[in-house]
């Protein structure tokens, strides 16, 4: 038996296939995403810019340049200022709550215990529920007559009558913030969890050996090391909150008396509800510089993460 390998007689053959040509593949694979962004983000953005300086309405879509008239109008509109303030309050408070709760939740999720997967599954559930369904469920939970929360409060003697969660200014805002936080915490927790997992075990062990207790480890080791990740989670959350109107729209429609009106819901109300597309566009444009700043901040945090 001859076990020595014969040298291969045939020369290398065949030619580069399409799958080997990166110069062709790269643009080809990017194309759908680029088309999608142009069609659904780029064009609407340019349209919004154009509409903001026009008198386009649903009834009269012809384009006439009107300069800054729409902006003058919304600056004179107290509801616009209230919406802007509400948007900031809504975003800042729900983000602050989200970060604290998500960090605590992430620390629970990283701990090793029995039935960990059940808990992880339950924690993620709010995020996977379609927002419309979740908000409708909360609408019932916060109902002025049938609210089970009221019922519990009444039966343990903490409340005499119904609370009217969505009927009073501050309570309505608190309810909207609570529901939105409930919805966004799981996502933030999972992002922060990923950050916690990426801290090498040796570093946690070294902190134990070096005598650091729970709070010192939290504030001197885990928080600084996960700060870039937390920043990304916060900024994503802020963008999602800032542009979100689903919770507000389903729970309160901006009420009572515009107490929970936010910029996106007000833009929708003006532009689609009352048909004044030009004013709606002008209101929505106020989101743009703030979102741009958030995007820059996100990119910076990501860059900082790479330097560790």
């Amino acid at each position, binding site marked *: 038996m001859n076990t020595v390998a014969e040298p291969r007689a045939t020369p290398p053959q065949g030619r580069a296939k399409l799958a080997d040509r990166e110069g062709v593949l790269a643009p080809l694979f990017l194309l759908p995403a680029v088309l999608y962004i142009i069609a659904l983000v780029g064009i609407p953005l340019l349209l919004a810019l154009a509409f903001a300086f026009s008198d386009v309405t649903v009834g009269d879509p012809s384009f006439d340049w009107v300069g800054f008239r729409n902006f003058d109008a919304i600056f004179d509109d107290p509801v616009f200022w209230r919406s802007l303030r509400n948007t900031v309050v809504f975003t800042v408070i729900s983000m602050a709550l989200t970060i604290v709760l998500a960090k605590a939740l992430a620390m629970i999720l990283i701990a090793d215990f029995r039935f960990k997967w059940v808990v992880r599954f339950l924690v993620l559930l709010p995020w996977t529920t379609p927002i419309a369904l979740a908000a409708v469920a909360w609408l019932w939970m916060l109902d002025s007559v049938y609210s089970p929360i009221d019922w519990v409060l009444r039966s343990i003697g903490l409340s005499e009558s119904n609370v009217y969660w969505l009927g009073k200014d501050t309570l309505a805002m608190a309810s909207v913030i609570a529901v939105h936080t409930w919805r966004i915490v799981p996502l933030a927790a999972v992002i922060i969890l990923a950050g916690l997992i990426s801290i090498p075990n040796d*570093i946690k*062990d070294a902190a134990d050996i070096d*005598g650091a207790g729970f709070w010192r480890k939290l504030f001197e080791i885990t928080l600084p090391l996960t700060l870039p990740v937390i920043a990304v989670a916060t900024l994503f959350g802020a963008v999602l909150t800032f542009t979100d109107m689903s919770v507000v729209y389903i729970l309160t429609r901006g009420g009572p008396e515009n107490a929970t009106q936010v910029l996106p819901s007000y833009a929708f109300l003006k532009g689609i509800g009352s048909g004044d597309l030009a004013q709606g566009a002008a209101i929505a444009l106020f989101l743009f510089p703030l979102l741009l700043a958030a995007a820059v901040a996100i990119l910076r945090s990501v860059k900082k993460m790479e*330097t560790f």
Partner: protein
Amino acid sequence: MAQPSPSGERHDGPAPALAVELRGLKKTYHGDVVAVDGVDIETGEGEYLVLLGPSGCGKTTLLRTIAGLEEATEGEVLIGGNVVNGLPPRARQVAMVFQSYALYPHKSVLQNIAFPLKAEKMSKDERERKAGWAAELLGIERLLSRKPRQLSGGERQRVALARALVREPSVFLLDEPLSNLDAKLRALARDELKQFQERVGTTTIYVTHDQAEAMGLGDRIAVMYEGKVRQIGPPREVYEDPADTFVATFLGAPPMNLVRRGDHLVGFRPENLLPAELVSGNGDRVTASLDIARIEYLSGDRHIYGTLTGIGEETRVIARLPATITTPLEDGDKRDFAIHERDLRFFDAESGKQTAAQPARA
């Protein structure tokens, strides 16, 4: 500094202080994976003890159990004569250097070194003075304001040592601290590590899989395999008088030759198998015939691979001739080689344990 009792013999008078003592230590995971399987070790004050073994032998788990990062399943850990089972690491007065050094990446070198003192609630001035002292001892004063990512591997290792030293712990635990350095730096760092320990005189337990490190650093070596300590003793004793065939073949490069004879194995180190004419004496040597298959020339030494007949069963063995022996040898030669009887070791073929000397010839 009190002289350690490296051989572990009993002295007359009061027993020397034991820095670390392990009694019947056992560690299992998930109830059935045994990582450490009944280890008893005593280390004297100021002793340099090396835990040596292949990966997965339980040496790192043992070290982590001493540190308090793992809880013993059974048995006791004593530090300075007190049982520390159940105590968290911070209460154990131990310092540890990790294989990855585990420096805090967001803190400067100074902050890294001072961190353990901060946890002791020492004042800022005192902390910085002490961190400066530790940094000076390791020659890294000029790096104090840098971040870990701006340091070379060797510098990181010194920072990790300074951080361990700064608390003046009663025990240093080092987990393969040299394995992340390149080969050239490693030899240098090994020498520095030894000098450093001699200067500070702190009891050190050092984990490694590298036998050169173990031989070079340890006052005593504990050879571990499958969760058990196979032998513990000074480097020379462990090398020359291995307790079993595992220790015999794990130590030494190339390892000890083992030749089967009846129900025994005859062991001898490659450097003791020499051309017969170079082994003096007649009655106290064993000669055998070596069929040379291959010769490797390695930095002056010659490693001779061949088949040995005449001691026991025909076996592939390795002989190592130092550069000073110039006897001409060729592939395919059949030559008489000999071993001094004092260099022969005997092991039970069944259990692998060393036994008393056997008759030289079957």
